[in-house]
């Protein structure tokens, strides 16, 4: 229903009845660019997965499977990886795909102007062996490398260079910001940034098409109520995400289906570990109680996660015990228990730590980043007040939130983490648990400055260990460490709720990427 036509073809459009396989979908955010290397954000990478392909891709159950690479194998004793490329693949404009395009895409994606270049920080050299073989050498054995480049999409050297888009340009944009020439299952027919983006099937796609779509249009709808109304009225066929409170009602209404899953994002509370004094609330300026592990444990025990899941999440989220969810690799099954809700024990711990009458502090929270973020923070404020510590809640838009956290303006804060890239426990260990170290690019989201020497020592070995059992043993050890120190209070894994009209069949992948080629319109 959102076509654009030129005046010349107006009469034709008015006469054409809508085809059954036309698919309309709506999401919260518009992918800000069509350039797969310029921006590393879920809306962009998720959308571009439909038009571009990588060397490898994720299957419906998040397993690595061949895509433009038919197979891959380690080189020697973990010096790198050798990929054998698929033959006979063409880009949307008809150009043939070969190893040179992969090399070019590597150069482009690892350029300073590319947002995704951190994926290639372990890579020391890339060698084209022949037209359909390419080798990636890494600085240390890197068992996760193939999985970590699942969202690295291959562009055509000829097309990109001919259109002056050989390097991504996030600031000023270039041809690749608005145009697409991929190898993916769909071609970009029309792009109106912020308004609509229209895709049509790529009839020359190398893989078997599972979908029956003839045309698909994406519209960003920011206001959740508007999106739900559009789904209910049949103006769109698919909406993600559906606000959790509307899920039950939508499920019950005619013509709409709800698909629920558990996302990869874990929501947690973080503390100021390093700060000497509290910054906010009634006790601003006093010594920082969160340096004491007993106080952090008291917080963990004061929060009734079950109540949050029961009411705010209406029973569809799952409590979290660690920084990743059970669905992801590296999950520590040995440490699956989380602190139980026990306000009396929390009070006792606080008294023990020297705060029998509690204290006041500041809780920072985003109000437009994660679903229900502000409600959850409000609920937490209430629960903490019941054990005597009063949080002054400061909820703000995410555009203010990250600068505040970077400037250390918090006593306690809410954070969500999704291990994009590797989808492995090592990811949050690197970004959240490791001692911050700018040079080694470690702990860059560890705002509170949590630091544990043993964890820092084990991390490099975890990253390079090839033997899964030995690796898991090390991960189990560090998980037990950060759990016992209550470095973070993992709260829950948020649910993934999608809504469709009931004539639509699709597959929900846990990383919240909507894959158009798995859609069937009945």
């Amino acid at each position, binding site marked *: 229903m959102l076509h654009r036509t030129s005046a010349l073809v107006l009469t034709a459009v008015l006469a054409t009845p809508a085809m059954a396989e036309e698919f309309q979908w709506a999401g919260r955010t518009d992918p800000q660019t069509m350039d797969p290397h310029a921006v590393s954000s879920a809306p962009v990478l998720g959308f571009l997965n439909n038009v571009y392909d990588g060397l490898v891709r994720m299957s419906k159950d998040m397993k690595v499977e061949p895509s433009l690479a038919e197979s891959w194998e380690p080189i020697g004793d973990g010096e790198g990886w050798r990929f054998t490329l698929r033959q006979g693949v063409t880009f949307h404009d008809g150009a043939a795909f070969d190893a040179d395009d992969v090399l070019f895409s590597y150069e482009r994606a690892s350029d300073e102007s590319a947002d995704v270049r951190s994926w290639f920080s372990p890579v020391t050299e890339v060698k084209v062996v022949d037209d359909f073989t390419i080798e990636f050498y890494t600085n240390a054995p890197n068992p996760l490398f193939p999985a970590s480049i699942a969202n690295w999409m291959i562009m055509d050297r000829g097309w990109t260079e001919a259109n002056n888009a050989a390097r991504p340009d996030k600031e000023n944009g270039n041809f690749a910001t608005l145009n697409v020439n991929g190898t993916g299952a769909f071609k970009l027919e029309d792009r109106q940034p912020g308004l609509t983006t229209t895709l049509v099937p790529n009839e020359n796609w190398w893989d078997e098409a599972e979908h029956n779509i003839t045309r698909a249009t994406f519209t960003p709808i920011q206001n959740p109520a508007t999106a739900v109304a559009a789904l209910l009225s049949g103006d769109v066929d698919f909406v993600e995400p559906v606000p959790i409170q509307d899920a039950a009602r939508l499920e019950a209404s005619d013509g709409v289906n709800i698909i629920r899953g558990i996302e990869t994002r874990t929501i947690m509370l973080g503390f100021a570990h390093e700060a000497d004094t509290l910054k906010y609330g009634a006790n601003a300026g006093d010594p920082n109680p969160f340096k004491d592990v007993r106080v952090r444990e008291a917080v963990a025990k004061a929060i009734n996660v079950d109540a949050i899941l*029961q009411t705010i999440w209406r029973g569809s989220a799952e409590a979290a015990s660690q920084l990743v969810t059970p669905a992801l690799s590296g999950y520590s099954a040995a440490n699956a228990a989380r602190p139980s809700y026990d306000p009396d024990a929390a009070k006792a711990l606080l008294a023990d730590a020297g705060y029998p009458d509690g204290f006041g502090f500041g809780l920072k929270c985003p109000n437009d980043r994660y679903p229900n973020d502000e409600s959850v923070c409000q609920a937490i404020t209430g629960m903490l*007040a019941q054990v005597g510590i009063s949080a*002054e809640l400061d909820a703000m838009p995410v555009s203010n939130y990250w600068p505040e956290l970077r400037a250390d303006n918090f006593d306690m804060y809410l954070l969500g983490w999704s291990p994009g890239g590797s989808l492995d426990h090592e990811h949050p260990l690197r970004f959240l648990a490791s001692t911050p170290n700018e040079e080694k690019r470690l702990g860059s989201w560890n705002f509170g400055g949590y630091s544990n020497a043993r964890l820092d020592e084990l991390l490099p070995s975890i990253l390079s260990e090839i033997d899964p059992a030995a690796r898991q043993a090390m991960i189990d050890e560090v998980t037990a460490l950060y759990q016992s120190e209550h470095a973070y209070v993992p709260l829950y894994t948020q649910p993934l709720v999608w809504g469709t009209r009931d004539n639509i069949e699709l597959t929900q992948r846990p990383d919240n990427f909507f894959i158009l080629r798995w859609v069937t319109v009945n």
Partner: protein
Amino acid sequence: MADLSTSAPTKPGRKGRWARFADSDFFYSFKRSPVAVVSFTVTMLLVLSAVFAPLIAPTNPFDPASLNLMNGFTPPMEPNAFTQESFLMGTDDQGRDVFSTILYGMRISLFVGAAAVLFAMVLGIFLGLVSGYFGGWTETIIMRIADVQLTFPSILVAMLIFGIAKGFTPVEYRDQMAIWVLIIAIGLSDWVQFARVVRGTTLVEKNKDYVAAARLIGRSPWAIMIKHILPNALSPVLVIATISLALAIIAEATLSFLGVGAPPTQPSLGTLIRIGQGFLFSGEWWILFFPACTLLALALSVNLLGDWLRDALNPRLK
């Protein structure tokens, strides 16, 4: 208040203030207008219940320690599935009693609205008098500033001020400051109307003989402005103030929808509606319905009152 005339018996010769009021044309036309009586009664009822909210409300929704999350989403007059508690108008997502939250929220809405209008009125009257009386550069500057103000639509002004003030406020005061910033933001976008009306009256009155006479006997400009000129402008000012009050309450709600309103830990009616609209499709209609009805009743009765005031104070329309 409609029965004041009976409580203040008229004595010939020495009439009390109330009695004179009760005898006035103004009060007469009030009594004769059922719309005015009803809207006045509703307004007073709402204002009083907001003022005495702590005495009326069953719970204090602003005290986080008293909340039980398990009470969340309880429908009106039905016991909660977990806690068996029941609430007149149900509870919201935080387990707050909607009825109490409305009472407390109305306090904030009314306070913000009244303070914003008062601020706009004082500022507008002052600038209107000064620019009309002194003229010259003073007038040019003030009226140009008024143009800037009109240039920016009220919600944009409020968003600007909110943005800037939030940046200058130390974070630890932000929660309390939010309310004051709202007042200034809404007030600042409203003063122009007052200033224009007062300036207009001033321009007309300042050339009249009695003002010239007052000037001749050496009264100070301020005394002339306030004692002689201003009373002529009071009727339109009162009408604008009443209508602005309704507008200010609505503006606060709109700002809240755009994300620059009262904090959700201390929600105003507008914030409650913003929160409630998220539950419109989920079946928890009461979270939106009751606050929206309250806002409607409040704004409508104030508007009707303002409407009637305009007619009553405009003798030409009688």
